[in-house]
């Protein structure tokens, strides 16, 4: 048992699923039974749909167990560790045999997430053992000129992974060419898109890769100060970042005269956000670091010329920085072999919604939506009909099922009306109402609008009112043209990305699901049977046995009927709570 190692995945989602208790239980058993295996921690491997995950590595190979709870871990230790017989049905990944999740792993190329789930993020040596900090050491020991570092980044073809997709190498070049005694680097970790959590996963699982990326950037553009602007909603990420920064300082990877180069001074501070979606926009983010309200300003001047504290500033996303050390170490060609033309490398997506394998996947650029959903994602929950996928969060749009052959690259996605965004992919099935989805996103952007531009502040509010009205069955014929007009005006007359893209969910749903809007407005019906006020509950006489379960359960007494007599729902009293539908054992209630 000396060479046996048990590793527990302790990312935020693992902890939420109970991994902390599992870890404690393993520690307890280890001590109680005097077992000699090593117990270690790691972070999220991306397989959120089977959390908590526990990996056992022994002489024969590695075995990843899924959905391990306190009860199951007893059984696993008993059978696997004590009796040397792995329990195949609980194993989701192994190097010894194939599991049902083969496609999920084989379809991925892990560059950004190369260490996530493989190392203990709280120990710098584990990162160093995986060629960590070798990229910056290589650059500094070989005295590679900063221009050549920027050229490597440019040649790799990497584009900003935060969403806009601007060439990272070009951005660095602008910042390098700005003359100033002080320059700043900011890592944008304000991952505000609901449904996106890849940045959190990188920060929790491999914080040093982000730090190293920033140090390389500092070397390339000549910056002395770095900030990581992280959401306050990610307490574990903040904690691990601060830990990583302290370790890097001890190793002299951060500080003054770094790597034997005189006047190469660089240090990083973590700034916690205070809960504002708009702070993901770069000028708003800088305002927030400066301690002001996070409101975007006009560009130019671009941050590369005049950014934080009016000094040249380079801002990149977490995912972008995490890729940099790998690119430097493996060469730009190794990165650009994935993808094609203007879209190179890999991208991490957060798969959520009505999908079987919800979690993180890292795929080469250019893969189709269909492949992600069916090959990696395993298809739709309960094998329902796939309707659409929302790409790019509240600023993105819905791509319908018939466009699922669209390749994932910046240009193709933009052509559909959606945006690549940070990589949130919310899958929707036939039971999702597209008008309600549009209303949901408008509700979000409306609340998150900073209020600076009139069209964003008031326009989104008016759009939300119209959409709410439609979902409540009070839609009017003139609502669709009104939505379209407002959408165009908001796009034209706002300053920042939030306003420009706020109407996207409405425009794309109008483009691809106009019939649903029309059904809501004209027929006062919700085709997906989601919008409560538009539903009608009725008893199917042939199926009703008169068991009185629904009658007794109805909170408003809207159901009439005696024992063994077909029941009747009084429509004028019905509040459409759905209680009768879920209680009926004979499927005798229909909704339409």
């Amino acid at each position, binding site marked *: 048992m000396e060479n046996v190692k048990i590793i527990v995945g302790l990312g935020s989602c693992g902890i939420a699923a109970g991994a902390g208790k599992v870890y404690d239980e393993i520690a307890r058993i280890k001590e109680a039974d005097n077992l000699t295996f090593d117990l270690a921690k790691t972070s999220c491997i991306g397989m959120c749909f089977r959390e908590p995950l526990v990996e056992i590595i022994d002489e024969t190979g590695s075995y990843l167990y899924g959905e391990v709870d306190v009860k199951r871990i007893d059984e696993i230790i008993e059978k696997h560790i004590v009796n040397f017989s792995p329990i195949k049905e609980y194993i989701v990944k192994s190097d010894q045999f194939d599991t049902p999740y083969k496609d999920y792993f084989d379809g991925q190329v892990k560059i950004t997430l190369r260490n996530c789930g493989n190392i203990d993020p709280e120990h710098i040596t584990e990162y160093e053992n995986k060629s960590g900090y070798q990229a910056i050491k290589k650059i500094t020991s070989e005295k590679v000129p900063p221009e050549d570092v920027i050229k490597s980044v440019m040649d790799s073809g990497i584009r900003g992974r935060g969403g806009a997709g601007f060439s990272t190498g070009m951005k660095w070049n602008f910042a390098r060419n700005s003359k100033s005694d002080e320059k700043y680097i900011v890592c944008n970790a304000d991952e505000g898109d609901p449904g996106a959590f890849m940045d959190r996963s990188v920060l929790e699982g491999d914080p040093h890769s982000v730090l190293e990326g920033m140090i390389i950037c500092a070397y390339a553009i000549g910056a002395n100060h770095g900030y990581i602007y992280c959401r*306050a909603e990610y307490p574990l990420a903040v904690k691990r970042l601060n830990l990583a920064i302290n370790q890097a300082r001890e190793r002299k990877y951060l500080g003054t005269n770094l790597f034997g180069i005189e006047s190469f001074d660089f240090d990083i501070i973590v700034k916690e956000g205070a809960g504002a*979606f708009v702070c993901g926009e770069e000028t708003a983010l800088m305002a927030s670091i400066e301690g002001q309200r996070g409101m975007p300003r006009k560009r130019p001047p671009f941050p590369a010329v005049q950014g934080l504290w009016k000094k040249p500033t380079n801002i990149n996303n977490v995912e972008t920085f995490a890729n940099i050390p790998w690119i430097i170490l493996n060469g730009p060609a190794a990165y650009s072999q994935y993808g094609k033309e203007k879209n190179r490398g890999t991208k991490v997506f957060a798969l959520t919604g009505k999908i079987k394998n919800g979690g993180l996947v890292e795929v080469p650029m250019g893969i189709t939506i269909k492949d992600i959903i069916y090959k990696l994602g395993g298809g739709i929950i309960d094998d329902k009909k796939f309707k659409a996928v929302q790409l790019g969060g509240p600023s993105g749009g819905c791509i319908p099922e018939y466009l699922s052959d669209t390749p994932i690259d910046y240009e193709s996605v933009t052509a559909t009306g959606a945006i690549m965004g940070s990589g949130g992919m919310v899958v929707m099935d036939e039971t999702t109402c597209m008008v309600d989805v549009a209303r949901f996103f408008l509700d979000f952007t409306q609340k998150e609008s900073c209020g600076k531009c009139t069209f964003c502040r008031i326009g989104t509010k008016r759009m939300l009112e119209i959409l709410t009205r439609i979902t409540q069955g009070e839609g009017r014929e003139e609502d669709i043209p009104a939505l379209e007009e407002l959408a165009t005006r908001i796009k034209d007359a706002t300053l920042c990305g939030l306003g420009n893209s706020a109407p996207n969910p409405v425009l794309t749903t109008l483009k691809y699901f106009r019939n649903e809007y029309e059904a809501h407005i004209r027929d006062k019906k919700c085709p997906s049977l989601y919008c409560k006020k538009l539903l009608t509950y009725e008893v199917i006489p042939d199926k009703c046995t008169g068991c009185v379960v629904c009658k007794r359960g109805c909170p408003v007494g809207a159901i009439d009927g005696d024992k063994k007599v077909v029941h009747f729902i009084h429509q004028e009293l019905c509040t459409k709570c759905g209680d009768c539908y879920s209680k009926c054992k004979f499927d005798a209630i229909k909704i339409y």
Partner: protein
Amino acid sequence: MFRFSFFINSIKMNMRVSRIKLSSGISEPGLDVDLLLIDPVIERYKGKQGNLIPLLQGAQNIYGYIPKSVFDKISSETGLKKNDLYGVATFYAQFRLKPVGKVVVRVCHGTACHVQNATKITEDIQTFLNVKDGETTEDRLFTLESVACLGCCSLAPCMMIGDETFGKLNGKKAVEVVKNIKRKETLDNKPNQSKPELWKT
């Protein structure tokens, strides 16, 4: 809604503060606020660039919200304008100007949770606790909040109470969880402002 109020002048902001005072007997318990507690935070950030948000975050960490008297103290000791402090505090969703209940129930309303019907969870808890979203119960035991995304999308729909996340919920299960906590807390019967801690790794 406060996000739109960037142009609102200080008069309106004072109105907001007075509204807090008037809303119920529990808010702004001036006597409970120990102003000495904030001294180390002021000491640490005084005179530093970009200190406004960390000062407010520090204050909220101590008191659970930012009492009016603390605004006054920060302003007079650091020279930051009260106007700017209020402006920032009302802009960001994180800052509270009212005390919170002992137990904060955070229902996730991210996209993944929304398509899995998180609305019903908030509605059912609202009915059970008899409060609106964002409000605190009269006994100061529960505060009900909606949050944008807890990042546990694969457990959707979910909510977070203290350090624990509850996933794969529906309205009934969620109310059951809250009911159990209420039963336990009522037995202890000591509502105060304890701060939940994150599970430590």
